[in-house]
């Protein structure tokens, strides 16, 4: 096995579907070395945790897996709120959705332009987490 295990300090998984969460966690096992993986059922919970971490000076997640359709606060609203937090650290956000609605893709391109973080768009189903999703640009080659 020559896959490089990437060391990641903290990962957020924000999704209300337990199966997807299970899948992401399982896939992460083989590519990332992370002690701190946090699961949230909706954007609100994730946002609250993120804001608290910023306030307390705790480490900000390096990678966020973000579902779009969620109750209470959806992926887009979470993105909006997160941009307002003005976090300076480098964050890779992977938007994960089963939606093939072109409107969602358009919305993503809009966010990509004004979001200070790396913003990937991934359609379900996902079979593998790419190095790119963890912020490794040329690590594997």
């Amino acid at each position: 096995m020559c896959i490089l295990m990437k060391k990641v300090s903290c990962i957020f998984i924000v999704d209300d579907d337990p199966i997807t969460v299970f899948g992401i966690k399982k896939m992460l096992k083989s590519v990332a070395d992370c002690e701190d993986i946090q699961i949230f059922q909706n954007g609100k919970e994730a946002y609250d945790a993120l804001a608290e971490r910023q306030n307390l000076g705790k480490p900000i997640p390096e990678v966020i897996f973000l579902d779009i359709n969620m109750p209470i606060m959806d992926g887009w609203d979470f993105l909006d709120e997160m941009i307002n937090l003005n976090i300076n650290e480098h964050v890779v956000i992977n938007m994960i959705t089963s939606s093939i609605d072109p409107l969602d893709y358009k919305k993503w391109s809009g966010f990509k332009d004004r979001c200070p973080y790396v913003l990937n768009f991934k359609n379900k189903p996902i079979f593998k987490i790419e190095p790119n999703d963890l912020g490794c640009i040329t690590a594997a080659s």
Partner: protein
Amino acid sequence: MKAVERVDQFYLLKQLPKATALLCKEGVLLDASCSWLEIFGLPPINKKQKTQIFSLLTEVENLSEKLQEGKSFNLQHKLTRNNETRHLKSYFAPWFDEKENVIGTIVQTDDITSEIEKEEELNWLKNILETKVAVSKTGWWEYEIDTEKLTWCKETKRIHQVPDCYEPTAIEAIEFFKPGYSQNKVSMLFHKAMANHQSYDIKLTIVTLNGEERWVRITGKPFIKDGRVVKIFGTIKDIHNQELAEQRVKEHQQLLTTLVDSLPLNVYVKDLESRKILVNKGECTYLRKRPEELIGKTDFDLYDREVAQISREEDIQVMKHLTPIIGKEAVSNLNGKTTHFLTSKIPYFDLQGKVCGLIGMSLDISSMKKKQEELCGLIKITSMQNQKLISFAHIVSHNLRSHSANFSMLLGFLNSEKDPQERKRIIDMLTQASDNLLETLGNLNQVVDVNTKTSETKKSLNLRKNITGVLHNLSAFLENNHTQIINNVGENMEVKCVPAYLDSIILNLVSNAVKYKSPDRPPLITINAMKSKKGILLSISDNGLGIDLDKYGDKIFGMYKTFHNREDAKGFGLYLIKNQIEAMGGSITVQSEVDKGTTFNVYFNEES
């Protein structure tokens, strides 16, 4: 003796009935008859006062030379006296003595004023006649029965285009008329004039000498003497151009009438007082009146006062400012029938370019209007259904895709997983995913049912009874949550609703009110019903968590939208009942305040 004789002689002269005077060789008046003196207004002869003939006939030149010649002559002269001019004719003859010596002149004078005046009048009349003929281009003709002589005047000859020297016979004259109708007719009229003493006046066609066909108006009048026609006199006038113009006008009129009557429009012309002066068939048919019943009428005679007043104001506007009204939509009520019109009013000008009324045209667009309304309704329904379809398609694609994506992912794991324990976990997950898919399909099926089975018949249902029924079924759930319910719905309140939908609506709204109760207070649900403009209004209010409508307002009735952290919140109930209510032609609205409570208002469409 000689003197006595002389006196006698002169006395005799004085009495002569014919105005007579004697002049000496030098032209001095020696004596005159009283009548002569009266003509010239002279006093009786006075020996001392010598009157020269030249002073009486001032305008006559060379009179003295003529007198000297000693020959007879006559001359006409005028005499103006007391502002009156008399025409005189005087005869001069030499006056001889016994030895045939000329000793003077005998003058006899006649007053010829009346003859002169008659002559002048005759000349004047001739003049007038000639002018009349010249101006009116009317010729005359005359036929003497006894001599069978036909006379044509110059103009008559000109009309026939024959030379001035041409002298026609009666037969030739008749042959100038166009063979057929004109010739037959004129022969008959000529004959009748002679036989029955009938005058005639008719328009016929002649063929001139040059072969030109022309319209003429010919008259004939018999002159009768001793009960016998002696002469026929008549006129002839070339009316070719007028006749052609008249025919053209008639043709234009015919064309215009046909056109105006055949237009699929109601057309009318009004004068400055808004009185109808022309109406076409369409207008008559619409008003159910004959044209003569409409001519001269105003809108006040035909429509309601208000409508007529508006119409009159429009008319004045058009005629005063000369700005046409084009294609204005108007509604007209007549005999209990409503008609939609597209009306136009344009100013109507006379030949001098002065406005003299208006021309109105109305196109009945009732059927188009009806179709348009139907179309608009259809478009509204279609676009609404389209919108629903699109959002449903998105829901389907998202929800079904998310399950199938999970299957793919899990199966991918299963393929490469060796650890039996891990494989079991994955299979459990697959079972879970399968159950989720089935539930989603079930939900979607329900929605499709609501939207496709529009034939589900609505029934009149007692609202209070149905509410009580649902509350009974929920009693355990309500009791567990210490719910208090105030049901204010009247005993006899009826709604038109599909029975299963009414239960679903009440069940969802009541259970939602309990589910999203405040942790600080036991749930209190108030149910009211009242009649409203939009139909029966059922409102269900709670004192629960409430929801921030500014934030979630547009999503609250969306599918799989939940707003509170509850395990049993699926985001399907409100979506379903909204579909059910709308399928029955009703609507649902929401009012809410965070941490105060929420009220849902359901309007039931009372139409079946």
